[in-house]
């Protein structure tokens, strides 16, 4: 945790998050994210062995409803919000490369 955040770490994380950064942004974010992580390093010195992590304020168990059909949004209403739709489906640019 003590290892400083490197520029290539930020570039890698940006790729994972589907963001493209300019060279200037990479520099800025490396510095700013490094400062935030440095502040967060006060957690690393804590001995929390055996403490149970909390992901949610209540100890919720799965909440389920009765399995009955209910009205939902109309397909055409939902597709009308999409940037592109075709034949009752969302349309996107090609997913794979050209066929060989």
């Amino acid at each position, binding site marked *: 945790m003590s290892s400083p955040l490197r520029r290539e770490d930020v570039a890698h994380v940006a790729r994972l998050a589907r963001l493209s950064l300019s060279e200037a942004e990479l520099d800025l974010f490396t510095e700013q994210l490094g400062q935030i992580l440095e502040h967060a390093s006060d*957690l690393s010195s804590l001995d929390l062995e055996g403490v149970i992590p909390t992901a949610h304020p209540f100890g919720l168990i799965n909440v389920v409803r009765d399995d009955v059909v209910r009205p939902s949004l109309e397909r055409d209403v939902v597709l009308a919000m999409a940037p592109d739709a075709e034949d009752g489906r969302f349309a996107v640019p090609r997913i794979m490369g050209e066929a060989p």
Partner: protein
Amino acid sequence: MKTALDTAQDVQSQVSSATAELETSLAAIRARNEELNVFLYVDEEGARATAASLDRRVADGENVGPLAGVPVAIKDNMCQKGIPTTCASRILEGWRPPYNATVIDRLLAAGAVPVGKTNLDEFAMGSSTETSAFGPTRNPLDPSRVPGGSSGGSAAAVAADMTSLALGSDTGGSIRQPAALCGLIGVKPSYGLVSRYGLIAFASSLDQIGPFAKNVTDAAMLLEAIAGHDPMDSTSLPEPSPTLVAHVNDGVAGKRIALVRELVDGADEDVVNSVNRAVEALKDAGATIVELSIPEFRLGLSAYYLIAPAEASSNLARYDGVRYGLRVDADDVTAMNEATRTAGFGAEVKRRIMLGTYALSAGYFDAYYGQALKVRTQMIDAFRRAYQQADLLIGATTPSVAFALGSKTSDPMAMYLSDVFTIPTNLAGEAAVSVPFGTGEAGLPVGVQLLGPGRSEAQLFAAARVLEIAEGRS
């Protein structure tokens, strides 16, 4: 400005009308919205139709609800059917939700009139409303300063007398901090008390909708109207809305209230003075005051700025240019996703998405996110121990009064520090209220924070009311 309570009584008894009250609100919005940038969208047509319908029903002898004809401002991260909902982000610009958030349906059922959508930090990520893609909101009390954030537009709407009530959302202090900076009552309800259905997700285990008002009774009325179980939110508490308004005058006699050292340490002197005076006022009203140190609170900020970005990085993955909002075209789908997100998100949102992605990534998960979740457990345990010694806790809401526009925008860590006193409550899922009490630098309002365990809203309102009366705001 007329209170929400008086407005509702006047509309129901036909002393006034929903239409007249709405026109007063719309005139106030027109007078200052250009200067202050409070509303991103004003639904004049829809609000007039809602008001006219309420007036017809009142004329027919119907009781239209506890918020009869009261105009309410809505933070623009809550869905209202057919009304542009942006989260103050380019990525959702122009999108109109196909359904109402549960809070909108409940407002309408209570006779309220939603007037429009207010500005916020982009996706509620910020503490000053300056990260909005549509420009900052200015503080009505001093337009050279910020209103706080992220619910800065909703706070400004009430502070500028555009509406008597507004809804905000509070993930790390986003209702209480702007309430403090604008001189209002701001409530972060217990996690699960108010349905999150239709609230656009930022950090789902922390987000909670709550009210802004100029007085305690109005805030209690609004919370009563929107709270209670909702089958559409699986994290919704199982019980119906609590009785709150009837308890606002219960006082604090016999209550034990703890002044928490970590909730005043580092605050400006004028803020500390206000907290000390508030403690005296509660003592005069019959409360027993104790002093506590809760060292775990010092770890809240670090834990929060790992947990909230981690959840945000997951929640904001949905903005991919496929189903709604912005799309920037490119040759293949991955390039389209990347071009869309790069163009659609602002710098603070990108910063948090990357921070969260990093904290969750292989090799760093245990050291950052995993460790933060364990601190969260310790925070909950620390609150539990504190509530064995006290019924409620008290401290400052923010370290300072409203700061100047632009003074923290280049230093994210300085901005994050303005949430240091509000974050513990969100991590523990508990309740807290910010109450204006006294003034500080330049005569600007100071917020005092009252904290309580889950489901303690009635006690918190009663204590807040004691402070309101002590300040001569009866």
